[in-house]
Each structure stands twice: as structure tokens, then as C-alpha cells.
């Protein structure tokens, strides 16, 4: 057991997976010799050789397309897209190929692969280093989408994703890489070394895909969140003093629908929080599922707190970010309704 940052735990997931399974290979832009611009793959090339961890040309369609071919061959590629914002040149390979190879070939071929990518804002990355594309992945049948919120989960979920026999989009909230953020951009953050979820086994383990985690039990209202927003929700709950149940979805698809339904049926109220733009964001699907599964238990309309419908602006990053103030306001509103 060690204290790890999220970067270290992600690295440890790849390291332990590569150690136990020769078919695991890691590649992407700058991930080889240098170890990735966020250093998630540091040391892997040295340890496992440049045929198992290597730099790729700057071509996201090539990264994903070649990973599909390798997966069809029998390997388990775990590739890095430098920022989630840059996954779109490879989106055709994801949405039309990786996602459908099992189905269209009736299991003759499969695409067990992981596409890792840093996601979300909070580092003044502007419109091209801050996007959260999870809803777009969730709309594509055949893909799985995972978004961890802490080092322990990140390692276990990434190991499970690498083991999984379907293509998994693994979104890493970059604001959490070095510390749990604690919801406010203008206050000091707790380092992972002081956070209980920064305690990570050194050996291989998995956290199953498709299971949400209840980060806080409560009776008054259910907050559905994932990634960075888990901490924003925690801050807002603490500040408002509302007895909310905070559910960290962890996996967007497959989704732990039963956990969501059970919680909302219990509380009768729900606030959904994500950083992505609002229209057709994953919050819309959550809203729809709550409508379908819990309508008769609802005492107030569900509220979405999300990024606004525009590119992530550079200077106004923190006005754009759905912070504790906005989430707190939603909590109060849903309780007053």
C-alpha cells in the first residue's frame, strides 16, 4: 500500500497490467521515451521495452485504428490521446469501427482496447484542452466509458478496463491528477498524500466497471456526479449543510442504473452535475433515466448543473466551471421546491 497521486496510480495500473499480461501494450503521442506530457507512462518503456511502450505519430485516427488492428490480432492496447479534445480525428474509428467489430462479426473479431485521455477543465487550458466528451461516447453503442475520481478507483478501474474484452474510453479528470481539488479553485487543495482515496495497493487489483460508489450517504437529495464534480458536490453539500447522498457514477456506460434508482427513490430529489456542455450532455440521459425510473417518487424537478453551452473560455474558466456555488444553489432550490 502506497500513497499515490492519480498520475501514479494510473501508471501503476498500466505497470501491473503489463507485468502480468504480455499482450498489454501502451502507445500514444510522447508516451514512450518521455513518458507522456502528464507523465502517466513514465518508466514503462524502460521497463517493458520499446516494442511494448512507444511513441506514436501525431494521428489520433492512426492511434485508434492501429489499436483496433492490434486488438483484433490478440493484443490489449491501452493507448493515450494527449487530451480528450484531440480524440475527434479518431472518432470515426471509435464510433464506426471499435464499437461495432464484435457485433458486426458476430464475435468472430473483437476489440479489447482502452483509450485513455485527460478530460475536463481547471488548468486554464482554454477551449482545446478542457473538453468533456463522455456523452458523445455514451451515445455510441458498443463503447464503454469510465471516469474515475480518485487514485484508488483510477488504478482499479483502469486495470479492469484493460482486462475488459470491449473497447473502453477511459477519461482522466486532469484537474485531479495531482490533488483532489476540494471544489474551490481559489483555495489550497489537499494533496493525494493526505487523502484516504490516495491510498493505493501496489499490486494488481480491479474495481469492476458499471458499479457506482456512494461517496456520502444522505436522505434529503441525491447528487449524481463523476470525476472532478464529485469534489464540487462534496464542497457544496458541506457548505449548504443539506443531507445529500452523493453518488460517484465511476462508469458512465454501462451505468449503475439500479444504484441511481434506489437512491432517488429514497430521497425523492436529485441534482445532476457535470462539466460538459449542457445540451445533450450525459446529464440529459441521467435526467431521462430518473424520469423513467423514479417519476412517482420525485418531489421536485431534477436540476442539472453543467458547463454552459459554449467552448470552454480561457479567461473565464472559473465563471464557466460549475463550482460549489452553483451546485449549492441547485441543492437549495431542489430542497425548497
Amino acid at each position: 500500500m502506497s500513497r499515490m497521486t492519480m498520475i501514479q496510480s494510473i501508471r501503476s495500473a498500466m505497470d501491473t497490467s503489463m507485468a502480468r499480461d504480455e499482450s498489454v501494450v501502451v502507445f500514444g503521442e510522447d508516451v514512450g521515451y518521455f513518458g507522456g506530457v502528464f507523465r502517466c507512462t513514465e518508466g514503462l518503456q524502460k521497463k517493458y521495452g520499446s516494442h511494448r511502450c512507444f511513441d506514436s505519430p501525431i494521428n489520433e485516427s492512426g492511434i485508434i485504428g492501429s489499436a483496433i488492428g492490434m486488438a483484433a490480432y490478440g493484443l490489449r492496447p491501452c493507448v493515450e490521446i494527449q487530451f480528450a479534445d484531440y480524440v475527434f480525428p479518431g472518432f470515426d474509428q471509435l464510433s464506426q469501427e471499435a464499437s461495432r467489430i464484435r457485433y458486426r462479426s458476430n464475435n468472430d473479431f473483437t476489440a479489447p482496447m482502452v483509450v485513455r485521455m485527460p478530460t475536463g477543465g481547471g488548468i486554464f487550458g482554454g477551449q482545446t484542452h478542457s473538453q468533456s466528451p463522455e456523452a458523445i461516447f455514451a451515445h455510441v453503442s458498443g463503447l464503454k466509458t469510465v471516469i474515475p475520481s480518485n487514485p484508488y478507483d483510477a488504478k482499479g478501474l483502469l486495470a479492469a478496463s484493460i482486462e475488459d474484452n470491449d473497447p473502453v474510453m477511459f477519461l482522466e479528470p486532469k484537474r485531479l491528477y495531482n490533488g483532489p481539488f476540494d471544489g474551490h479553485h481559489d483555495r489550497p487543495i489537499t494533496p493525494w498524500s493526505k487523502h484516504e482515496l490516495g491510498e493505493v495497493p501496489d499490486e494488481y487489483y480491479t474495481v469492476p466497471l458499471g458499479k457506482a460508489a456512494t461517496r456520502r450517504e444522505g436522505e434529503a437529495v441525491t447528487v449524481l456526479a463523476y470525476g472532478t464534480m464529485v469534489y464540487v458536490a462534496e464542497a457544496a453539500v458541506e457548505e449548504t449543510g443539506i443531507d445529500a447522498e452523493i453518488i460517484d457514477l465511476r462508469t458512465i456506460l454501462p451505468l449503475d442504473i439500479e444504484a441511481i434508482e434506489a437512491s432517488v427513490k429514497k430521497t425523492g430529489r436529485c441534482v445532476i452535475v457535470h462539466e460538459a456542455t449542457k445540451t445533450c450532455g450525459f446529464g440529459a440521459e441521467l435526467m431521462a433515466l430518473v424520469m423513467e425510473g423514479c417519476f412517482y417518487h420525485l418531489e421536485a424537478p431534477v436540476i442539472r448543473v453543467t458547463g454552459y453551452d459554449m467552448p470552454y473560455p480561457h479567461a473565464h474558466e472559473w465563471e464557466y466551471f460549475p463550482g460549489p456555488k452553483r451546485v449549492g444553489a441547485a441543492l437549495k432550490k431542489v430542497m425548497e421546491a
Partner: protein
Amino acid sequence: MSEPKAADPKPLSLHVPEPEFRPGDKPDFSNVPIPKAGAARKPPIDVDAQDIHDLAYTIIRVMDREGNAVGPWAGELNDDEVKQGLEDMLRVRAFDARMQKAQRQGKTSFYMQALGEEAIACAFSKVLRPGDMNFPTYRQQGLLLSADYPMVDMMNQIYSNKADPLKGRQLPIMYSSKQHGFFTISGNLATQFIQGVGWAMGSAISGDDKIAASWIGDGSTAESDFHAAMVFASTYRAPAILNVVNNQWAISTFQGIARGKAATFASRGLGFGIPALRVDGNDYLAVYAVAKWAADRARAGLGPTLIEYVTYRAGAHSTSDDPSAYRPKTEFDAWPLGDPVERLKEYLIKRGTWSEARHVQANEMLEAQIAEANREAVKNGTLHDGPHASAKTMFEDVYEEMPLHIVRQRQEAGV
């Protein structure tokens, strides 16, 4: 920005390439230079790309107009192998004709034939070994038909019937057979070109000895995944053969819309340091020899080869297309590289091991086999009349395990 002392500005205009012949024109390819059979040199497989630029701009040919096999690329196959090749091509042609008819009879939604370009897939399939993998487009049925893939399975898929190996999920002709080295075809163009390179990289990463072959059409080389494949194949020296089937047409669009000026598709390889060969795609012997050279290169760890097969799409693009709207009906007749079946037949007759009579006989036998397979397949149903795989199979295999939301959808559907 300063004003340079150059010529006065003059109006520009957009250059939109046009094919030489449109419906009503009399096609005449006499100005297209066709290099003599046997003229192209055969370099060693470890040659550097920059030392064989010429081979990317010529057309490597083996059979001359008199049916002789000549030059350094000749002599790779014995008569029995060539007879097998001829039979393979005849099988593809007859199979296509039968399935075209089935589509017109309403037994399926759609069909695509390989008429005029049968030599390419048929000859290519012979250079692969068990375990190698093709990443084909929709016009390489020859790879399956010249291997031992059962025709009745192909038909079952074409009819989307209850015995369809893909359970009716895929379009007709979008086959998949790992066992036969045939990667699941995508309807989306060019995506498989880079996947094949990735597969080949996988083999190299694993210290395996298997190679991959990626396939693409002339029009589809314009797609960006062509570039991705070239970049990855050249960077990692992937053991892959990159096949461009230049059949002159992409639906209604001629190859000039994908290719600039006097450049060839093969010559695209040179900018990546990839050896590139341009070959007569209607010459079974030349296709085999060139493909073999590329396979040997790949297996020897020397990396990828780009091959452009010059051929002609003699039929419509698909059963949804009518080419008389955009090209002269007689263009194939005027096509200077002839018909691959006729040419190989003449070669064998000239060798004295074949005859018109045996040709007719072979054709009849194949047609009988195909008719028999068709009777079998139809018993399993056809697209509109069924039966199909159970509707419940529609919900399966989206993921390895069915997630709750799909379980619920299936329950709602009551299947």
C-alpha cells in the same frame, strides 16, 4: 505584408478534373502508354524505396499480347497453379453473376460484383499463409472464393437468412471470417487500411511471423485513413502489404478526383520511404509475382510495400448504380489491359494445357456448383421472406455481457 514586384494580379479559376470520356463519347485509350510486358525490372526485396521510383510510375506486366509470360517477374507459378487461378476467377465471376440475379429477384437488398478485377484478389490470396490476415474492402470476395470458404455461407449472409453466419446484422457481402484470414468488412471506406497496419504491428510486437494485407480502392485513397496507414506502416516498418485497387472509378467519379496530375497512387508510397510497385491488375501472373515479392519483404522483416493494381471496374458500382449515366457503355471493351479471365485463358491455351472446350466445361461445372449452393442457401431463407435469426439476437453481442439498459430494451421488445 509588402507588395512584391511581381506580375499584376490576374483572376484565378478553379480546375475541376474531368474524365476523358462521358456517355456518348467513343472511348479511345490509345494515348495511354502501356509498358511492354517483361520490361520492368525486378529488384531484390531489400531494396530502398528511393532506388525504385521508376516502378511506381510504370506498369509491371508479365503476359504479353500473344499470351507469353516474359521478363523477370515471370515464372513464379506452375501450370496447375495457374489453372487453379483461372478456375478461381471463373468461380468469382459466376458467383457474382448468380448473386446479381438473386438481388434482382428480390432475395436480398444489395450486391457488389468484382467484374473485370477478379485477378487481383484471386492471385493475391495465393501468397498468404494460414494465419495471415486480409483487411478487405467489399470487392475482394475473390479472397474467400479462391480459399475454401463455403459458397453457401456467403449466400446465407447475402440472403440474411437464418443460417447467416453474422445473424443478419451486416449488409450482404460484408463478410467476416477470421479462420479464412478475412477481417470483418466495414461499410465505411478506408478505416480498415490502418487497422491492417495495426494488426501487422501486433504480429511484429508479438514476435510472430504473420503478415497483414490492407485493401483500398482508388477513390478511397483520398480518405485520411490511407494517410494514417502510410504513416504508421512506414514508421514502424509494419509487416503489411498495402493494396490499392485502382479500377479507375469511384461510383461516378473517375480516378482524377483522387489523384493529382501525372502522379500515380503507387507513388504516394515514396514520400514515406515505402517501396511502391504499380502492376497490371488484369494480369494474374504479374499480380501474383508482385504480391509475392511484397509478402517476402514483409516476412523478412523489411517492412511494408505499397502496390497499385491497375484495373477497370467493368460492372456497375453496386446494384444501386447505373454507370451508363456517367461513362460510355463501351469503355471496358476499349480498356487497354483487357479482361483478366480471357488473358489467363489465352496464356494457358498457348501453353497447351487448356482449351476452349475445357474452359466451357469448367464454367459449366462451376455454375452447377453455384446453383447447388444457392439451392441450399435459399432453403435457409431470403431477406424479405425470412426466416432470419431470432429477433432476440439483435440485442446480443453489442458487448461481451449484455448491460442492464440493453436487457431492459430487449424485455420491452418482448423478444
